[in-house]
């Protein structure tokens, strides 16, 4: 397939995942806020931290109060993680590649785009927000499912999956990171009673709560949550699972040696992680390194398949 199209499919996968993650993040945090004591107001700022958009955000807004954060994450076209921006990108990428996608998917994407454009302003109000975000998530699931069922699982589909799993792994590390920041940060004094609720929130942000309860029988605690999110092989949003998916997808592509080598290396790092030890001392740095490794996978994917170089051809 064309390199240009492969790149578009990859970004399509990433933005689909990003739109869904953003919607879920806002939803879960809004819910959590209802549970927490009134003094904890930093929770909305946490969303900005998670998505790594501090710089863009504070350029425009003075403080991270609810209204600002919500507007920024839902409707701000300048924020590449906002639902509006992600969905515009989904549409643009799909538009350029619509000949490789089933046409029903294109119709769904159009519908999603129209829906978001029409309703995003309603969602700035609290009482309409939940419904809007739920709808966005449903649309995303519908499109993902439609592609899964109706699109040939060939190269194009592989690139969507690569994009999705890289984005997903990245988001999981970010959310795990934020959980720790709350607990470690001495400025935010969270009563012990709420620690449990916080970790539940971390799990819920990743739709992981129920699966966690099924697989980890202990009560919710930080170490087990981090271990589950990093190393579980079966939960689709766990980093280890995402990496295995990446490994499988990349394996099927031509010229995959370089990328495979990096992915395998990162897999080893995650598998050999001693969660208890890392939790004690340096979880934040560990996650930082992991994110750098994920970025390296992205760079190699770009180099191997999206950038044309005559060298690739000579190798064959």
């Amino acid at each position, binding site marked *: *397939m*064309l*390199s*240009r*199209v*492969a790149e578009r499919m990859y970004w399509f996968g990433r933005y689909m995942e990003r739109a869904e993650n953003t919607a879920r993040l806002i939803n879960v945090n809004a819910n959590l806020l209802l549970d927490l004591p009134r003094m904890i107001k930093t929770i909305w700022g946490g969303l900005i931290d998670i998505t790594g958009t501090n710089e863009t955000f504070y350029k425009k807004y003075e403080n991270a109060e609810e209204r600002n954060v919500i507007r920024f994450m839902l409707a701000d076209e300048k924020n590449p993680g906002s639902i509006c921006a992600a969905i515009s990108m989904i549409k643009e990428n799909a*538009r*350029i590649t*619509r*000949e*490789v996608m089933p*046409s029903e998917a*294109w*119709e769904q994407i*159009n*519908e999603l785009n*129209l829906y978001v454009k029409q309703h995003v302003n309603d969602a700035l109000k609290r009482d309409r927000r939940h419904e809007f975000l739920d709808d966005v998530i449903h649309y995303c699931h519908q499109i993902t499912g439609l592609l899964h069922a109706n699109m040939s699982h060939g*190269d194009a589909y592989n690139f969507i999956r690569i994009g999705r799993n890289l984005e997903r792994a990245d988001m999981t590390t970010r959310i795990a990171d934020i959980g720790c920041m709350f607990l470690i940060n001495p400025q935010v004094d969270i009563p012990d009673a709420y620690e449990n609720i916080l970790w539940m929130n971390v799990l819920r942000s990743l739709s992981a709560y129920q699966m966690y309860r099924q697989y980890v029988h202990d009560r919710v605690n930080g170490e087990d949550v981090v271990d589950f999110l990093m190393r579980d092989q079966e939960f689709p949003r766990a980093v280890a699972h995402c990496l295995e998916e990446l490994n499988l997808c990349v394996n099927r*592509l*031509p*010229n995959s040696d370089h990328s495979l080598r990096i992915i395998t290396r990162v897999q080893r790092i995650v598998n050999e992680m001693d969660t208890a030890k890392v939790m004690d001392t340096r979880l934040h740095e560990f996650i930082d390194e992991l994110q750098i490794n994920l970025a390296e996978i992205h760079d190699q994917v770009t180099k*191997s*398949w999206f950038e*044309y170089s005559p060298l*690739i*051809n000579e*190798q*064959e």
Partner: protein
Amino acid sequence: MNFKNYKIDGLYDELLTPRLQARSSAGKLLKYLKSLNYEEINKRKYAAELAIKTMGITFTVYSEGENIDREWPYDIIPRIIPSREWVKVEQGLHQRMVAINHFIDDIYNDQKIIKDKVIPKELLRSSKNFRKECCGIKPVFGVWAHICGSDLIRDKDGTIYVLEDNLRVPSGVSYMLENRKVTKRVFPELFEDYNIIPMGDYPTNLFDTLSSISPRPLDYPEVVVLTPGIYNSAYFEHSFLAQQMGAELVEGSDLVVADDDCVYMKTIEGLSRVDVIYRRIDDLFLDPEVFNKDSTLGVPGLMRAWKKGNVALANAPGAGVADDKVVYTYVPDMIKYYLDQDPIIPNVPSYSCSNEKELKHVLANIGNLVVKPANESGGYGMLVGPHSTKKQQSEMAKQVKANPRNYIAQPVISLSTVPTLCDNTIEPRHVDLRPFTLQSNRTYVTPGGLTRVALVKGSLIVNSSQGGGSKDTWVISPDKD
């Protein structure tokens, strides 16, 4: 709904007779429309608008430095053509396409038609679309124009004329196909009552046509659609056709011509050979080594690869020489010269301004004529005499005098009408018809075509870039019983 206030005013209406009776093929449709009240018919209209939105059927307008995607304008009342009439049109288009291809092949090789003085030599020398770079080339089957969109119009007396042949990068076929899909969603009941000839196999026929001209005799030659990109007004169509044919949609930057003078596309596996390019880029942007040096849309070396016979281009560069509006006036002569036949579909009578006598006539009667530049498309730069001001007329006269070769003039053909849904009424609106013809070692004509409709009352301008709409077009075969 009723047609009591419908005004035909001496024009030809495609669905109604002058006495407001349904034409025989339109009986069931009109009966059905009459059975709906306005509320019901508006409901269908909204359903169609929604379908067009969600199907993402758009066209792009370039205006004030910005590209805007607009929803495709579509009117829910279809146009009907009985198959007995269509058979003749189909034969006529076939005949025309064969003659035009003989002409192009002749022009770039022996130029017999000029030597035999059927066509004046000056005509070529001044043609904007004649490409001297194409001389001496012999494409497969001697075919240069593989895809043609012809504009047909019908006069008051019911005669169908060819208004022009679009041989460079004719567009509209995707809208023709999508219109049918929308109509099926909106009026499924009518498809039970009528034998409407399906047109959905156009992409298959297009793919077969393109495959047949592959320089390598393969079962599955690599066919690609070359687009200028998402900002082109017809990008929707490029993407649609690539998708429907299962071909790659490529931009110029996706292709390279290697040292072996073959064309390759850049893929995730490296370079991969391309056999046939259905190009939707104008000649002058195809290859910066030969034509427009600043073009970033094309592929350097493409002409080299084509001349060597390593890649097929459809339509071939230079095919546009026959879609010049002055050359058009000679098509009936070509049909006689190459095929020894009489034209089945007549041309609109035309005056070439390059002929001094005819130029005088044009200038004297400019208020009653349509004056068109020879090489514009999309309805740009033309003057519709009876609908113009004195000032516009004198400006046009000045331009014609300055460059007579560049203009032709035709009497105003009134254009037939079709009932069209307006604000809570049904009124006649003018239409034309663009069928598409494919040519390689065989010929295919779409059953029907894209009906374009001038949505403004009384207007004759049907181009979508200038406020035109469209209709589904049904070629109907008689009941099976």
